[in-house]
């Protein structure tokens, strides 16, 4: 998938353009994308970064990093994505100016958007505005009950099955492995300490089963209360893995919540519990 950062970087050619923030690239988004990839025209996405609601000063826990969002768009069959910086200049564009620069200027002939799509200054543009401009507004099958907000709520509640059903894949943690407390190794369970973008939604603290790098993983999310920690730590232990992950990006699927974090009477009790967590992780099933 080619990535552009300005409409002038998109060659003018017959395109079907899906427009949206697409945070999470969930089933509702995939339905919009399918209308574009299925159109027969060059399937193109215009997406925005940062998340428009964050740019407007709201607090939004995002579901995917931009990097992951672009990977998922590519997997969905998108040929070219324009990542438009959600700047005050962009927000001031009238709907007509947006259409002229971003759509007609890039050769768009058809557009796919979600049910509540609005664009341009004061969100004054809608589907009818696009149609008046001579663009074909593609039919998009509406997916009931799926929204980024509902997925965020499910993740916070550790409803991983619910989140996975709406995403069409398991919920993922995504970050870079950094130096941690170096404690897991001494317990016999070396974990990778993941630094995650603080804007990303984080599930309820606890111990989870999942997968990373194609291996089962037991994941601790929380403050390590047994050691009196206060900072959030995200630490997967990859089963049957022996390698150096420092500095590498890790995408971790969360499959099942195993238990709450706990304070143990002894380190032996903690190690025994981790052994049980590892067994439960081997038995865990991938949702969806």
């Amino acid at each position, binding site marked *: 998938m080619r990535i552009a950062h300005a409409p002038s970087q998109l060659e003018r*050619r*017959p395109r079907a353009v899906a427009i949206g923030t697409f945070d999470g690239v969930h*089933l509702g988004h*995939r*339905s919009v994308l*399918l209308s574009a*990839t*299925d*159109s*027969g*025209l*060059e399937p193109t996405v215009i997406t925005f970064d940062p998340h428009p609601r964050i740019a407007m000063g709201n607090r939004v826990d995002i579901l995917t990093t931009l990097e992951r969002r672009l990977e998922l768009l590519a997997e969905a069959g998108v040929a070219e994505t324009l990542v438009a910086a959600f700047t005050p200049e962009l927000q001031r564009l009238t709907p*007509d*100016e947006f*259409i*002229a620069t971003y759509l*007609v*200027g890039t*050769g768009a*002939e*058809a557009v796919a958007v979600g049910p509540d799509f609005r664009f341009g200054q004061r969100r004054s543009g809608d589907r009818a505005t696009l149609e008046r*401009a*001579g*663009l*074909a507004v593609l039919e998009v*099958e509406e*997916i009931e009950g799926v929204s980024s907000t509902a997925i965020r709520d499910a993740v916070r509640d550790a409803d991983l099955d619910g989140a996975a059903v709406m995403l*069409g894949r398991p919920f993922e943690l995504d970050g870079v492995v950094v130096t941690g407390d170096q404690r897991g190794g001494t317990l016999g369970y070396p974990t990778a300490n993941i630094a995650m973008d603080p804007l990303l939604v984080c599930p309820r603290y606890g111990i989870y089963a999942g997968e990373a790098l194609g291996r089962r993983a037991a994941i601790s999310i929380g403050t390590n209360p047994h050691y009196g920690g206060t900072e959030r730590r995200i630490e997967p232990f990859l089963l049957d893995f022996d390698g150096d992950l420092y500095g590498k990006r890790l995408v971790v699927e969360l499959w099942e919540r195993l238990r709450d974090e706990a304070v143990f009477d002894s380190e032996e009790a903690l190690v025994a519990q981790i052994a049980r967590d590892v067994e439960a992780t081997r038995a865990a099933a991938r949702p969806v």
Partner: protein
Amino acid sequence: MPIPKALEPTGVIFADKPAGPTSFAIVGRVRARTGAKTGHAGTLDPFATGLLILLSGRATSLQDRFMKLDKRYLTEIDLTTRTATGDPEGNVLETHDPPDDDTLAGVLDRLRGAVELPIPAASAVKIDGERAYRLHRKGVAVEMPTRVMRVHELELVSHVDGIVALDLHVGSGTYVRSIADALGGHCVSLRRTEIGPFSVEEADEERVVPLEEALPRLAAVRDT
């Protein structure tokens, strides 16, 4: 989730677009008949007619192969009126007397070869044109981005009452509307007669030409 469209029949469809519908409307019409994923390889404005190359099924991913080809157009240009879009859709910018034959011959001659011309405001969308029109009325010159366009052949077919008919063979990315504007007029009609090795005379919307038949003809063009 909805079910993706069929990838068969795979091939190329040569259509002769009538004036009125958008290129994508022709795509929709063909897709309704074949049931297959269908795209096209280069748009014609709604008012224009002529050859449109549609790609069906797996051929939709070959858009690149069928773009960037030379094109041949027949056009009638009204030399007395400039419009904001260079076609009948745009608002009138100015009217004037048509040039005499000698002046016209000189202007046409300067348009042959590589010429840098403004990219016209989109025809299908009147927005830019409307804005250009309003600014023009206020006496503000509207700067449109320019592009080097290539006119391989330009033949004067007729010149009657300020309407000139031209037969143009041009490189990819050359806008006939830009040429009309450079002549101080606008396209009254526009018909695409050739795209690379393909002619509008072989247009048959019912027939899906197999890739084994269409692709070698492209290769032959590249080799010459």
